[in-house]
């Protein structure tokens, strides 16, 4: 089915027709092999950038956490005991009086909760 001489002739003609100039081939080879170095450099740059960003995020997170721990939480409330009563006073001036809890409310026993 496939004549050998015809096959060889067609293949040789196609190869000869499309044979690229040597300078083009040299350029392609050179740039392909050199492209690996560029790739490595660019990988290094990306790794370095990622590490720098991670360090920045870590530093900011640690600083924010440190600031959060230093914030006074309970110091803004003063609790003073007076007999069975407690006086709770916040630094913004609001005050609560807290007495002992009763199972049933009867006259004379009550809880006063005053917000001033």
């Amino acid at each position: 089915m496939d004549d050998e001489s015809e096959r060889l002739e067609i293949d040789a003609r196609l190869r000869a027709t499309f044979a690229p100039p040597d300078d083009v081939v040299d350029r392609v080879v050179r740039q392909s092999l050199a492209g690996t170095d560029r790739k490595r450099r660019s990988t290094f740059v990306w790794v370095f950038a990622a590490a720098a960003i991670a360090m920045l995020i870590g530093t900011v997170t640690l600083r924010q956490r440190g600031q959060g721990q230093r914030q006074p939480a309970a110091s803004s409330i003063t609790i003073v005991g007076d007999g069975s009563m407690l006086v709770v006073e916040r630094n913004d001036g609001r005050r609560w009086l807290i007495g002992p809890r009763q199972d049933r409310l009867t006259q004379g026993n009550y809880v006063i909760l005053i917000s001033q």
Partner: protein
Amino acid sequence: MDLDEAVRALAPRLVAYGVARTGSLAIAEDIAQDVLLALVRRWQRLGPPRSPDAFAFAIARRRANRTLARRALMVPIDVIHWLARDEPTVEQAYETRSELRLTLSALRALNRRDREALLLRSIARLPYEEIASLCGSSVAAIRMRVSRARRRLTDSRQEPSDGRRERTA
């Protein structure tokens, strides 16, 4: 075979295949460059592929298909671009070689699958088994396509005038 040797052996075949597929030396060079870079990265990361030729031409084939599809959309812009130039470039001079033009014209007259099989066999020099694997076809069908394409190219060569005679299979 080491990487350097493989790149040097593949480069001329890839450029030739690119020219045969796209008709442009500049585009063929870009395709060959991309394919070889992909091969080099693959080789350095995971070692040599089982068949560097099949690996390279599988990528080249996809890239050529994509380039042709994109170019079909961009033809009017390309025409304006070329018309705006005064002197022919090296690529144009290369492309206007009469033999190249005639062969490209004869190749374009072939059935798309026949042409692809012929180029992968004649220019890429891939074995029939690898062409069949790349094209998703059987070895027998690829042999048939290559043989038919060769016969039609020979016939078109023997035609006296413009080589546009239509044949049916």
